[in-house]
């Protein structure tokens, strides 16, 4: 667009030729975000965003600061200083119904090997634990038990008062990269390529001690597990660096489905091992999942894939949704999907059913469908068309949000206030629906007029 300005190609890499990156013009009628507010408080990469309640969220990142914001006004409410190094994990600690202390709490872990419990209403540092042997990389709260677990090189169980209840032995030097809770008092930890299932033993009449037991190790992944989520009451999903997605039964921990190479572009239907060799793993690593009742949305490399749980197949995909790795995806209520990427953009997609779906029979063979999936450098239009025809649905780009100058790490969607994105450029941007904001401002204006008594002054 600005070619006359720059006097050359838009990008030296010539991305446009390389991959069919879908672009949308400047006319984005369906994009509701026509207002933005840049929030500046961090001095380093902002990696985490956590929603506290309907109008507040907190951000944290490599500068070790936690900032609490008002999502409506963009006002900085609190700045919490306590960590000396970058924050590695960040969750809220829901208060118990029974508990008198109604204040919202949050837990942060940092590479300074401390975990701090904050009161996010007052900004007070409630408690601090600094007896860790290693950096805590993930945190999880088991609300039913009112305990929380920290995962580093070992797994520790803590109560609300931050007393250590029990811990496992040293698991690995890489440490636990993800933790989820599954039924039967169990948690799943992703440690390198392995999934380890632990069971938490609560104190009973016989023994007053808490205990945590390793129950099972699942060794089905070929490479490091990057993402781990539980999608519903029946299953949880893992995704690995080489693009393996495995759906596990949540109760008996068996593999329900495995999509190991369906994003593999290599035409031949080969076994998993060979894929690794010919692929840049980053292009197919699964960074993030999100899900709704029917589908799992996976961020695979630069692409976005929609996997239907019933049909056990990918129903829509966008192989190059972004210029570079997709880091976070989220599903909006209205069949919309938002993704953010290392290329600094945020894109809004809509899942649409294709018209000709009924006409086209699904090609035979499960792997056959996905085998041509990834578009190579030589990828040609016919292949793309074929692929599009192959999927019953499509992801249509309906808007993109450009604001960050560096990788967008994460975002948070507020039903009422819009979208919050955080980025490696140290900024947080609050994207808002301009029309709605305008209406709200009018409302505020007339409220203030009324307060001032100017509204009915007219004589």
């Amino acid at each position, binding site marked *: *667009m*600005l070619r*006359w*300005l*720059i006097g050359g190609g*838009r990008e030296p890499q010539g991305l446009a030729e390389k991959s069919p990156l879908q672009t949308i*013009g*400047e*006319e*984005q*009628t369906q*994009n509701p975000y*026509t*207002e*933005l*507010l*840049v929030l*500046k408080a961090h001095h380093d990469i902002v990696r985490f965003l956590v929603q506290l309640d309907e109008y507040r969220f907190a951000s944290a990142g490599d500068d070790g600061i936690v900032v609490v914001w008002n999502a409506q006004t*963009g006002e900085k409410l609190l700045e919490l200083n306590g960590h000396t190094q970058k924050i590695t994990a960040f969750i809220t600690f829901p208060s118990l119904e029974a508990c008198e202390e109604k204040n919202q709490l949050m837990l942060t872990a940092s590479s300074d090997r401390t975990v701090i419990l904050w009161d996010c209403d007052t900004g007070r540092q409630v408690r601090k634990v600094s007896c860790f042997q290693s950096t805590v990389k993930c945190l999880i709260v088991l609300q039913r038990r009112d305990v929380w677990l920290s995962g580093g090189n070992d797994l520790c169980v803590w109560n609300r008062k931050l007393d250590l209840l029990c811990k496992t032995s040293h698991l690995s030097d890489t440490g636990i990269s993800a933790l989820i809770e599954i039924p039967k008092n169990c948690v799943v930890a992703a440690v390198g390529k392995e999934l380890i299932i632990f069971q938490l033993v609560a104190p009973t009449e016989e023994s007053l001690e808490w205990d945590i037991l390793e129950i099972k190790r699942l060794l089905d992944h070929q490479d490091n597990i990057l993402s781990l989520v539980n999608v519903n009451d029946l299953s949880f999903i893992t995704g690995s660096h080489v693009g393996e997605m495995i759906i596990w039964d949540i109760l008996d921990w068996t593999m329900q489905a495995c999509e190991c190479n369906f994003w593999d572009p290599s035409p031949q239907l080969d076994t998993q091992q060979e894929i690794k060799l010919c692929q840049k793993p980053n292009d197919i690593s699964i960074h993030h999942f999100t899900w709704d009742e029917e589908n799992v949305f996976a961020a695979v490399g630069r692409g976005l894939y929609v996997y239907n749980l019933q049909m056990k197949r990918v129903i829509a995909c966008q192989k190059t949704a972004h210029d570079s790795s997709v880091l976070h995806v989220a599903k909006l209520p209205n069949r919309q999907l938002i993704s953010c990427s290392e290329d600094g953009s945020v894109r809004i997609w809509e899942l649409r059913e294709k018209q000709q779906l009924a006409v086209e029979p699904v090609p035979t063979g499960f792997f056959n469908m996905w085998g041509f999936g990834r578009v190579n450098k030589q990828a040609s239009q016919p292949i793309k068309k074929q692929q599009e025809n192959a999927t019953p649905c499509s992801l249509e780009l309906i*808007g993109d949000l*450009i*604001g*960050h*100058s560096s990788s967008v790490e994460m975002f948070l969607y507020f039903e009422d206030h819009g979208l919050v994105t955080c980025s490696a450029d140290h*900024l947080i*941007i609050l994207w*808002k629906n*301009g*029309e709605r*904001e*305008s*209406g709200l*401002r*009018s*409302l*505020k*204006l*007339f409220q*203030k*007029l009324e307060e001032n008594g100017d*509204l009915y002054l007219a004589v």
Partner: protein
Amino acid sequence: MISAPDVVAFTKEEEYEEEPYNEPALPEEYSVPLFPFASQGANPWSKLSGAKFSRDFILISEFSEQVGPQPLLTIPNDTKVFGTFDLNYFSLRIMSVDYQASFVGHPPGSAYPKLNFVEDSKVVLGDSKEGAFAYVHHLTLYDLEARGFVRPFCMAYISADQHKIMQQFQELSAEFSKASECLKTGNRKAFAGELEKKLKDLDYTRTVLHTETEIQKKANDKGFYSSQAIEKANELASVEKSIIEHQDLLKQIRSYPHRKLKGSALCSGEMEHTQDQASQPATTSNTDESAATDLYTCRPAYTPKLIKAKSTKCFDKKLKTLEELCDTEYFTQTLAQLSHIEHMFRGDLCYLLTSQIDRALLKQQHITNFLFEDFVEVDDRVVEKQESTPPKPSPGRPPSRSLEECPIPQVLISVGSYKSSVESVPIKMEQELGDEYREAEVTEMSSFDPQESLDYLDMDMKGSISSGESIEVLGTEKSTSVLAKSDSQASLTVPLSPQVVRSKVVSHRTISEDSIEVLSTCPSEALIPDDFKASYPSAINEEESYADDSEGAIHFQASVSPPELGEAEEGSLENTSSQADSSCCIGKESESLRVPLSTPAHTPSDQDGVVSIPPQRYRQKDQGFHVDFAVENANPSQDNSSEGFPAYELDPERLLASRDVSKSSLDNSDTTSNLSSIASTSSDRTPSSAYPPGPSSERHKKRAGQNALKFIRQYPFAHPAIYSLLSGRTLVVLGEDEAIVRKLVTALSIFVPNHSHHAKPVKHWISSPLHITDFQKWKLIGLQRVASPASAGTLHALSRYSRYTSVLDLDNRALRCPLYRGTLVPRLADHRTQIKRGSTYYLHVQSMLTQLCSKAFLYTFCHHLHLPAHDKETEELVASRQASFLKLNLGLVNEDAKVVQYLAELLKLHYTQEAPGTSHPTLRFDYVPSFLYKI
């Protein structure tokens, strides 16, 4: 902002900066006779014809006890400005009208010399022969070595335009009071320091004398004193007395009521100083003074000198300069203030008044005025707004000069009625609190007994001899003195020296019977200094209580309906005998219950009583001309048209009239002489007059306007660019040459709506890559284009954020921005416009933008547009209502609606913000395609 550009186009704002704009010649049949003085470069609206100086200036003079009145300095200090104007002569004149010889010395009944904190006096003085009219501000500074410890000074604002002086009197007075206050503050400091030194000297002398006496005493035990010893004892006694006197003086100077300082911002420095001093140890040796304030006590160690018994005041000694009299710091501050004044009042009166009205109106638009106003001015306004307490409108007060106090409708009306009321009426002071005085005045009216009034004045005077408000009329030859010049020390009476009724070179221009006479005059050469004292001063003590009371504010009273005038005339006719002249005013005043602080005394020069005038009218208007031309129908409106009143409308009748006047004035000019009216106010009033824009901002506007005009003519795609600015889409001006970019950015900044009062969202020059925050902060950016590869980042950022920006590439003469199809910008920026001057164009833009603001205001504050009428109403319905309002009611088509919507958002934000200016508004944008325009 609110100005009719066409009117202002005629003003002289550019007289020093730009060549006059030459209009193509009119066809013969339309041409009017040329203004007689056109050859001299004068225009019909300025009365520069007779003046020997090229423009207004400020003169500081002193009445030196050694050489008499002498000019000290002028501002601007440029001989070109005053040209051949005789400063010495004028100094003589202005110094001589200082009626309030401030008395210092031994007042009867007081043992010690007494300092008086004399209020400054302010008079207006005219000299039609010189073509000079002056606002004269007298002040007294203290000097230990001077006679009576006082040195009279005056500052005069000298202009060729009498109306300017008269109509800007309040503003002038306020500004000069600040300057004066500054000088006096510095002077008090210096004086106190001087006194301390003197006291130390005396103390030392006393010690020395004492020892000598003791020695002598011891030396002769004969039981009688030698004459030498007696002499010494006398000397000692006189030193003792002197010490006491000086201590008393010091106490007096220190007890200067600090309350008076509060008003003047300029002297705020003093409070700091005093605090500084208080913290320092007092070095004075007077223990009995320690109880007094330590305000002035800190002096560096000073070695006392022996003082000769008889301190001689020799005339050959050099008097202190003004700078020595005041602290240098204060002196320079004063000079700065004076040059500020000079800047402030530069230019044509018409222009000053227009801009005053402008500002008064703008101030009332506090909801929208931040959008396109120069924020510097707005800042001023904000301050004023805080300062000025809402004045209670005095009943029946006609719309008058205190525009800023009137609610909007009144102002609007006043533009019409302004002329009539102002002109037909004398300037009067309305002293609402002065009930006492009013009574006194009433007494005066009923039986004008000089003695009585003297008594009254004296009575009022006791305590401090200060003259607060007074109105003074410099006499015309018609006026005879009603009162003998008072001998009272303060000369605060209402005297007329008989000499005033001197030579009757009266040129009566009685054009018709109804008409009004001519205030005649004596040739000015005939005036000798003594005569000047024969002004008609009356001065009133400033009551302490007045000062702080807003009610006490002085309003120039435009008065009185024609009937009243009639009565006044009748009254004066009846009273032609002795005190007639004053009664003519008084009669009127009694009607209106408006009490002038002094009554000008006019007596018909001949006993025939030919003339009956509302004399003040002449003072008010054409003092220089002394002719009233509007004769036959003394209908006020016509009458008014004669006034050289600022051209709100330029009807030919009026132009002709004023030309006539000027002509006749010229004819008379040799014979006419001074005639002035004086109004003086107490110096510590702070009138709420607004600052006219300084010339710098004026020039800035003009340049911006010019360059904007150039841009519009040069670039066919100026409209979409301006639309971008108006709709809040950041415009990036890209170029290699910083000067060119800056120039264009400055020019285009006139179209940029402000977010708040604090800063215009304009970045003139930046060379680093743009960031998203920049678009939130700035709406107009000058960006450096670098040829080197380093600029790739800059350009990349630009293309990345292209949806937030419009890019104007100066080097390629290209523009990339959204389409614009509205009708607003073409009117705002018509490349075929006939406007040729930058300032005119600037005003054109401002008036268009003001219109736009009012639309935005309407849109923003229309309740039903933004809120659903009932719960079930959908957002779409509300939106469509808004759209139809914008289109049908406001007449906005296509993209114009977006401009108003953007302004409305700014208004909402500004209104609802708790602390305005603290945050930047959100960055609003649209997903609209951009187009590339290229020449």
